[in-house]
């Protein structure tokens, strides 16, 4: 394997406290090493460029059944953007829901090394893994959804944490999943009857359990197992005006819970796409709707065991997709566009609706502002991660644009003054006008690398340039000393990495993709004590209520997970 030495770049690595210093970064046998430890390395000249560890995406919908439904039912998403293969690259297509190949190439060009697929319906785990397998270059994992699973609902009604944990361990093993995702707890099961859970205390029909019990129980079970990642929640009433109170209710469930794990993770709850959960007012009209990002982020600032990602609206035509079935139904009634829905037996549901965040409307502009506020109010950037909940609030390819807005007050003002029709109204109803903070490159490295890696329990592999970590390094054509004059340079640079080294392999060279890398699928194998009751419950449910047999449920074999990276967790003690 070739050794690399990246010389003369401006290095940003918050884990080591390196803030723009000119440090050489060396890679040997796929790992970061001290610069003196490489012999005859290939030299990469990063003079005048920014060097960071490869980025880590904690939440994106890039593989699986609803993503593919988004592709197949939106041919218009590929209009004029399908491109031919060239060199190593195959054909690509799609804007908001790109094909797996475009997803991989995009991530590489943006300097990413790891991406977490945010919601995997367990019954469809094979599909998710087939797409992950066909997405080259980046390492990926997938979070199975638990928040509406019948086993979980039944156990948590009686607060049976040990049984819940045993079931989670079993399911992660069966589906080759990474952690615990919880989407609209209880609400999606209610949607099986066309209903919803709108607050944390609404009761799930028949199962007689509340979202509060589900969230609390899943956090406990997650810590009981000591999984690398914490409980990853998308709370009730996403996108509803006035939902910030419900968000605070959800966050407060984690109060006082201490993380228990061997991975250096310090939070117990990750609230994803916080932007959608920070709304005040009673309707979407500009005289009622208001931002409550400050209230929510202030609460998060006051505790130390919660992280979140932003979910910034990028003002594009995109495709929304979520396991929050009732929300998508609601959305389809708002915009009257096509609506796809799939309820999944015993487990979850999902919906998909195209959506146009129109900058000429007040509400889209306000959502844009709230997403950025979520990034700007944070005191500890190690707990706030930049996402667009791709493709829900915006397509994957817009990440660099979001960085630009966060890093430049000038870019934000330009949007408010020139692009958004209701800029003044948005300044009035949101906090964006009072925020002049500009995220630094050092903070950006926290919010896109060190932070997400830590919360995923992967800080021993990703997120930093510390010797011993994976040889994942991105070099961006951005000079922090001279390129500060024009925010457009930020967007360009972070969308066009000059170099990406992934696992010690040179993937992007002078802006061109030259290697398909050695893609791995991460999953967590949690060992628990034998639990005959849970085993019996599982076989009983398969015998009576599933339409596949238990033996045909397990995801196995090299054609689903050809190159696994298994993280072992022992919860038997």
């Amino acid at each position, binding site marked *: 394997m070739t050794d690399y030495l990246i010389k003369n770049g401006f290095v940003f690595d918050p884990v080591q406290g390196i803030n723009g210093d000119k440090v050489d970064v060396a890679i040997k046998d796929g790992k970061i090493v001290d610069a003196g430890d490489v012999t005859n390395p290939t030299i990469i000249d990063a003079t005048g460029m920014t060097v960071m560890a490869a980025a880590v995406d904690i939440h994106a919908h890039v*593989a699986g*059944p609803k993503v*593919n*439904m988004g*592709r*197949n*039912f939106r*041919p218009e*998403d*590929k209009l004029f953007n*399908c*491109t*031919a*293969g060239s060199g190593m690259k*195959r*054909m*690509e*297509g*799609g804007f908001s829901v790109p*094909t*797996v*190949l475009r997803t991989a190439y995009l991530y590489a060009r943006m300097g990413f090394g790891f991406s977490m697929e945010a919601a995997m319906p367990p*019954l*469809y785990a*094979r*599909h998710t893994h*087939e*797409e992950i397998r*066909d997405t080259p270059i980046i390492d990926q994992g997938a979070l199975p959804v638990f928040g509406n699973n019948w086993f979980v609902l039944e156990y948590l009604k009686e607060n049976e944490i040990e049984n819940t944990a045993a079931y989670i361990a079993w399911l992660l093993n069966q589906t080759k999943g990474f952690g615990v995702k919880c989407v609209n707890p209880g609400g999606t099961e209610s*949607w*099986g*009857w*066309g209903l919803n859970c709108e607050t944390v205390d609404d009761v799930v029909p*028949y199962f007689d359990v509340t979202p509060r019990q589900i969230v609390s129980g899943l956090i406990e079970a997650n810590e009981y197992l000591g999984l690398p990642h914490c409980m990853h929640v998308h709370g009730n009433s996403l996108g509803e005006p006035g939902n910030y109170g419900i968000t605070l209710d959800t966050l407060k469930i984690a109060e006082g819970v201490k993380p228990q794990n061997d991975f250096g993770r310090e939070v117990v709850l990750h609230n994803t796409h916080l932007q959608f959960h920070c709304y005040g007012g009673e309707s979407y009209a500009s005289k009622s709707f208001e931002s409550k990002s400050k209230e929510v982020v202030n609460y998060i600032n006051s505790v130390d065991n919660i992280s979140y990602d932003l979910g910034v609206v990028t003002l594009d035509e995109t495709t929304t997709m979520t396991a929050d079935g009732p929300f998508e*139904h609601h959305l*389809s009634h708002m915009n009257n*566009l*096509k*609506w*796809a*829905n*799939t*309820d*999944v*037996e*015993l487990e979850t*549901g999902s919906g*998909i*609706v195209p959506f146009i965040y129109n900058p000429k409307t007040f509400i889209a502009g306000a959502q844009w502002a709230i997403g950025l506020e979520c990034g700007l109010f944070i005191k500890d950037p190690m707990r706030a991660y930049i996402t667009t909940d791709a493709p829900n609030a915006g397509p994957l390819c817009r990440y660099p644009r979001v960085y630009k807005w966060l890093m430049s007050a000038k870019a934000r003002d330009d949007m408010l003054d020139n692009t958004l029709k209701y800029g003044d109204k948005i300044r009035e109803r949101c906090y964006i006008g009072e925020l002049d903070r500009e995220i630094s490159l050092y903070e950006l490295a926290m919010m896109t690398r060190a932070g997400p890696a830590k919360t995923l329990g992967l800080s021993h592999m990703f997120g930093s340039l510390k010797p011993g970590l994976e040889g994942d390094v991105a070099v961006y054509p951005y000079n922090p000393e001279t390129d500060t004059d024009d925010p457009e340079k930020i967007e360009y640079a972070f969308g066009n990495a000059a170099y990406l080294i992934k696992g010690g392999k040179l993937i992007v060279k002078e802006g061109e993709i030259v290697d398909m890398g050695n893609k791995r699928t991460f999953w967590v194998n949690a060992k628990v004590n034998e639990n005959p009751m849970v085993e019996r419950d599982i076989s009983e449910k398969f015998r009576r*209520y*599933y*339409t*596949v*047999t238990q*033996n*045909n449920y397990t995801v*196995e*074999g090299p*054609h*689903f997970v050809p190159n696994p990276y298994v993280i072992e967790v022992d919860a038997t003690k």
Partner: protein
Amino acid sequence: MAKIVTDVVCPFCGTLCDDLEVALSDDGKEILEVYNACAIGATKFLHSQASDRLTRPQKKQEDGSWKEVTYDEAADYTAKMLVDAKKPLMYGWSSTSCSAQGVGAEIGEEVGACMDNTATVCHGSTLIAVQDVGVPSATLGEIANRADRVVFWGCNPAHAHPRHMSRYSIFPRGFFTGKGSKSRQMIVVDPRNTDTAKMADVHLQLEQGHDYELLSAIRVAIRGEKLPDVVAGISKEQIYEVADTLKSGRFAVIFFGMGVTHSLGKNHNIDIAISVTRDLNDYTKAAIVPMRGHYNVTGSGQVWGWQFGFPFCLDLTRGFARYNPGDSSSNDLLVRDELDAVFVLGSDPGAHFPVRSVKKIAQLPSVCIDPHITPTSAVSKMHVPVAFVGVEVGGCAYRMDNVPIETKKVVEPPEGMLTDEEFLQLVLNRVRELKGAA
């Protein structure tokens, strides 16, 4: 003592039953008996045991006789045919595994082919309708556990998906449907008095070709608006009654088949059937599920979806993916004489395409990859028999509700036979050699 293999997945129809048991001879080489399967499924397994089965590729001679060739020669012929063609059609992809479909997609991309699957003469109109209005759906287990109103529209599962009603839709005693068929109202809409219709609580025997009108009338009735006395041959009283039945259910589901997808109106029939389902969701819970035919036609749409972004009718000839049903659909390409080679795998267009299209296949350089001797293989220039997916080799397949299930290998294929994935890999390697040399 026979050896029993359990949890076997049936590689026949989109119902993709996964509870089959297969009895093997002591040496594990021969299938003796198939349990739990329907007559069609069992026959597929047993047929693989036929002693006169073709086990080597054969090439048609000028006098019309067949000459045995090796797999390498067959791969070479196939690769040359595809590379030399300006616009080859690669059709079928429905009776094979997703991994084979994946290799096929790479070949199609390398040679710039038109790629199409059997949806083009089946549920392609459904795919188009879904692109127009979406699709509120559910897995078949949701239906087994919840549905109390079940509609079969233009489909006849009693014969086409024989275990559908017992496994998923009518008879199962699910979690919230403990009384099985007694907890369900079954409505069949079909101009014919089929065996499915005979089982129904209500059979709407509409006039043939008037599905759109009747679906539209049901939408009207759901909203409580006025109807003419008779629509599509059905009295307005009966239409109001059916609308009430659907609205009053806790969970309604519409299954539909070729009776609506390829009768007058085509995708518009499905548009409005989906719209009925959408409307019902304002009153209760409702889902709609296409009765997909081949066991993995759904999978080929998925594989192409994540690789190219479109589920069928792909035109890769310009180097990037284009999708334009009516232009890039197999029959249109064949009839308009736009193709210069035809490659068929996992389907039998010889039996299912209009004779005008089949004649074109017969005139063109053509390769058919199929374990059986079929009307397609008979008109092709090269026939490559392969192992049966789901019997002699495993692989992933997608059920009609898109649930992926891994089919099983039960017995070894006859000595020296390749699987379709292995053969495609030979072709892909050869294509790359040829293109590299060019």
